[in-house]
Structure formats: C-alpha cells, structure tokens
C-alpha cells in the first residue's frame, strides 16, 4: 500500500512541477489532470473512496474540460517567459513555501477541530477504524437511500427534466 502511496505522491509532485514549468498552456492543463488523478489515488489509499471518485468526476472531469475549453477558445500562443526574479514569481514562491510550512506543521502536530474546541490527535476520532467505517462509499449510499431517499429521487428527476428542457430549447427547428 505504501508503495502505491509513494508512487502516487511522486507522480503528483512531478505533475505539479509540470504545471508550472510547461511551456505551453495546454501542457500545463494536461499536467494538472495528471496531478489530480494522482491525488485521487492518494485519497483511495487513505480509504476515502468517495473523495477519490469526486476528485476524478468533478476536478479531473468537469473542471478540466472547462479549462481546456477556455484554453482552446482563447488559443494563447507561446507563453511569455517569466524572469525568475520577477515580483509575481517571488510572491508565488513565498506563498508556496508558507503553505508547505502550515501543512507540514498540521500533519506533524495533528489537526485541531475548531468547532468543538477539542484537540484531536492523529489517533482521535479520525482513527483508521473510524475512517474505515465512515469514509466508505457504503455509508454515503446508505444515507442516500434511507434518510435522503426523497431528495435523492427528486434530484434525479430534476436532472432528467433539465436535460429534456435543454434539448427542446436547443433543438434545430424542424422544417414545417
């Protein structure tokens, strides 16, 4: 498991670097896709299956399609080269370092949940046993088909009728 985790983490880092370094915007976008898929694999190894699925569907799927669509629409040429000492490069670098420090500290010291005011260590309520139970898609499905059965079915009907309406409005007019 840790091998897969390590590999995925390495791919994520390389892909993230690729986003910044790539010469063409489209390559940056593709590197971002690789990064998001690698992150999804990380979630999977951490027993967060639903998060992994959402990561693929929403980010790697919908959001990236939008990105690529906009890139294709604006069709930027070769990128202007950034000087390594330019202000925005420096600011961006500083922000990245600060973010890394914060995340590292949180990871090493455990996460405190502000809402309840109690301190939660790494073996607190998010211990592997509990993550195992509640992070699973099973829990979510169970809720969807019991407590939230009616809203779930209503949403599906809503999506269906939205599609029907969109097809009607955009359909080419028939020769009459």
């Amino acid at each position: 498991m840790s091998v897969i985790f390590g590999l995925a983490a390495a791919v994520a880092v390389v892909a993230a670097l690729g986003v910044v370094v790539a010469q063409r915007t489209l390559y940056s976008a593709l590197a971002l896709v690789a990064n998001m898929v690698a992150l999804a694999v990380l979630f999977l190894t951490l027993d967060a299956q639903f998060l992994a699925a959402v990561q693929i569907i929403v980010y790697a799927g919908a959001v990236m399609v939008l990105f690529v669509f906009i890139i294709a629409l604006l069709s930027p040429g070769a990128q202007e080269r950034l000087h390594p000492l330019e202000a925005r490069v420096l600011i961006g670098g500083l922000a990245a370092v600060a973010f890394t420090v914060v995340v590292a500290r949180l990871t090493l010291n455990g996460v405190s949940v502000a809402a309840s005011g109690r301190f939660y260590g790494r073996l607190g309520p998010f211990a592997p046993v509990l993550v195992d139970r509640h992070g699973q898609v099973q829990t979510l499905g169970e809720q969807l088909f019991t407590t939230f059965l009616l809203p779930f079915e209503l949403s599906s009907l809503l999506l269906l009728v939205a599609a029907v309406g969109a097809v009607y409005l955009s359909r080419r007019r028939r020769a009459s």
Partner: protein
Amino acid sequence: MTGWSVGALPWYPLHFVPAVDLLSALPELIVGAGMVLMLIADLLVPPSRRGILAVGTAAVLSAALVAVIWQWGGAAHAYATFDGSFVADRFGLFSDALILSTAIVVVLLSPPYLAGRGLHAGEYYILLLASVVGMLTLAGGTNLIVIFLGVELLSIPLYVLAGFARDERRSQEAGMKYLLLGGFASAFLLYGMALVYGDTGKTNLTAIHRVLLEAVPAGHVSPLLMAGIGLIGIGLAFKVSAAPFHWWTPDVYEGSPVVVTTFMSVATKVAAFAAFLRLFSTTFGSAQSGWTVPLALVAIASMIFGNVVALAQRSMKRMLAYSGIAQAGYILIGVAVGQPDGTAAALYYLAAYTAMNTGAFAVLTILSSRGRECDEYRHLRGLGRREPFLAGLLAIFLLSLAGFPLTAGFFGKFFLFSAAIHDGQVPLAVWGVVTSAVSVFYYLRVTLLMLGQAGETEGMDPGSTGGDQLESWAVQTGDRRAGWTLPGRVLVLTAAAATLVLGIFPTVVYGVIQGIHAVTG
C-alpha cells in the same frame, strides 16, 4: 492501514431504516412515472397525433387526483414519512387537488392552442408533468431540503415552458427573465434555509418547530434564525409574486404561451402558498410576533400595487398578472393571521382562485386557439355579440375575481377579511376592502367592453397597423369551431360551476377545510 480492498471490508448492516411509506407519495409517484411514460410515448406517437399525448397526460393527472381523493380518508392523522421529510396530510392533499385540477384543465385545452401556434411538441407535456411533481412535493414537503427541491422542480420546467415559443422574441424574453429572477429568488430561499439550518442544526420542520417552541418563550430567538425566516419569506414571496418581489410577473405572463400562463398563475401560486402556510403558520408559528408585521406590509403593498397598476393595463394577460399580484396580497392576509382561521381562509381563497382564474384563462385560451393570441382588450370588444356564451362565462370569472356576491371571490375575501378582524389585524381587512373596491373598475371595464360594438376603435391609432391586425384577427375568429372543443366546453363550464358553488354554498367547501391544519411531522 488495513481495509483498503473491498473484500476486507466488514459488512455494516443498515442500522437505521426510516419510515418510508411509498403510498403516502402515491400522487407524486403516479405523476413522475407518467412523465417517464410520456417521454417514451413522445418517441412513438407521430407528430400529427400529439393529441394522444394530451389525453395520456390528462389520464395520468386524473389518476393522481383519484389517488389524492383515496388518500383523503386516512389523512386525518397523517404523519411525516421518508424520515420526516414528506407528509400526505389533508392540508397538502387539498392543495394537491387544486394543482392537479388546474393541470388537467390546462392539458386538455392545450392541443388546439399549441397546434394553432405551431408549438405542439411532446416536451410540453413532459415539462408540465415534471412541474406538477415539484408542486405536489412542495405542498407536502416537511423538510427544508425537500421544499427547496420541490421549488426547483416546479420552476425549472416552467422556465422552459415560459420560453416555449422559441422563435418569438417575447416568449424568449419571458423565459430568460423568469430564469434569471427565479434563480435570484432561489438563492434567497436557499440562503434563508442555510441560516435556519445553521442556527437550529435541523432541516426537518418538526425539529425546527420544536427548537422555536423552546426558544421563543425564553426569548432566545437568535437574529440568525429570524434572518433565515425572513429570507425564506422573500424567496417564497417571489414565487407567489407578491409586491415588492413581483417585477417579473407581468412580462413573464405576457410573453408565455397563454396555456403556460394559466398553469403558472394558478398552480404555482397554490403550491407556493401551501409551502408558505406550512412554514410560516405552523413551523415558524411560535415566532409569529417577529414576522407578522413585515408579512402584513407585503400583503398591503401587493393589494395596493396590483390593483392600482392593473387599472392602466390594456392587455388581458398583463391585467390578470397584476390582478394575480393583488390576489397574492389577499391570500397573504391568511398567512399573516395564522392558524387556524387564517389557514382555512387562505385555503378557501386558493380554491376560489383556482376556479375563477383557471376559468378566465381558459376562456382566453379558447379564444386564442384560432391562430392569434387573444390578449388585448380590443380583441374582446363586442365578444358579447359574437360569442355570448363565452363572454358570459368570462364575465362570471371576472366578477368573481372582483369579489361580487354569489361568486367564489366574495366568500373568499369575506373569510380572509373576517379572519383578519377576528385576529385584531384590522388594517389588513380595511386595505383589503378598499383595494377590492378599486379592482371592480378594471374587471368591470373588460366586462362592459365585451358588450360594446366590435367596430369601435376608441383608444386606437387609426393609421397604425393595429387596425389590420384587428381585421385579420376578426377574420380568424370566423372559425368558431377551433378551440371550442368538447373538453374545452366541459372544463370551462365546470370552472364556472365551481365558481358559483363556492359563491352560493360556501359551507360545502369551508366545512371541509375548517378543521385542516398543516402538520410538520
């Protein structure tokens, strides 16, 4: 870390199975299934025979109406199912019956009208059925999530239906305006719900009701909760088109095909008021001192604005739109008064409104089924001689809207105003009576217009193309058969009969309504 592979997962049984009673949602299930059925039928039915779809849709709606009547007996002590998110109580069922009746009338009147305007597409029936599912859900929803989804399911098909005449600029404008302002209203509604959830931690109305019951006597109602209630009220006021949240109404009503306008103006209002009453009179009832004054102000503003601006209209749809704003104001009196008199009076008025407004629009639909929209006042001039029967029926509906005795509108207003006086909210009743007197002018104006000569051109530019249009319109009305179908005849007569029964024997319906109250769980 263990337990990654699925095989290693321990099986957790369903530890909690909420009460899911599918029978309580029978009307919704019938209409929803009917919608899917029509989706398939649309592919099989040849374009020239789309009337079959109308008959099928009406059959589905009638089946749902039968289900509602069947549920009525057992609904006296109904409790919420689907984990407390939906209830088939008599309050909801009564609203369901009004919504379904309106939908049946609209569907059966649609084919000749839509065919006449070249709009007869199968999607019309599918969208309409989906909207009905949303309305029925809204009338019985006892959970904020379900209520929100009901509002959306009601609205999204209506956005498309408002723009159903895709090639006409006014219809496009109506669809777009309704979409933008409807989305705006939904945002208010959702934000309000989020605040209520944020404060109470609950989405079930029963639980919210309980929180309020404890908080109000102790004086611990948080501003967050009151802000949430206020925003929910604004969101719903948009949907019932109460002033000052009514700006979309005239343009959308005017631009939409008249059958859609009928459905929109009656069924939407009934469903939204059902949710309004359930939320405000019951759930937020204990916090009434906090919202009753703003709500009364909205009611008064709607009555004044709707009735005064309606005076200046020259289009039937716009006049009925402003009249609808005024009617929303009257019904809001019932919400502001609260349980139990206010709720009963509001339900009675909704029944009266369904009969008279559906009837008035049905006559317009029949007149419009001859190829051209019969909308402007001048189109109605002399109708009394050309078609005395239709003109007479339209007169009954208009007089009822004005609140003349022996019609439904009279007792509708009587119950509302007396409930207001009974509750000590005399200004509401006074403003109601004053604005009703104003409304008589514009309703009578149309009625008298129908008695006039067809050739008179008073108020028209003699040189404009209007004269030609009028002429061609008159030529088209020569085909008196079009639109005047058997179902059309039966339905308009039924609406007229309902208007008179509600106006002459009010106890028939009021006796049924009197004991009803909206339950939350």
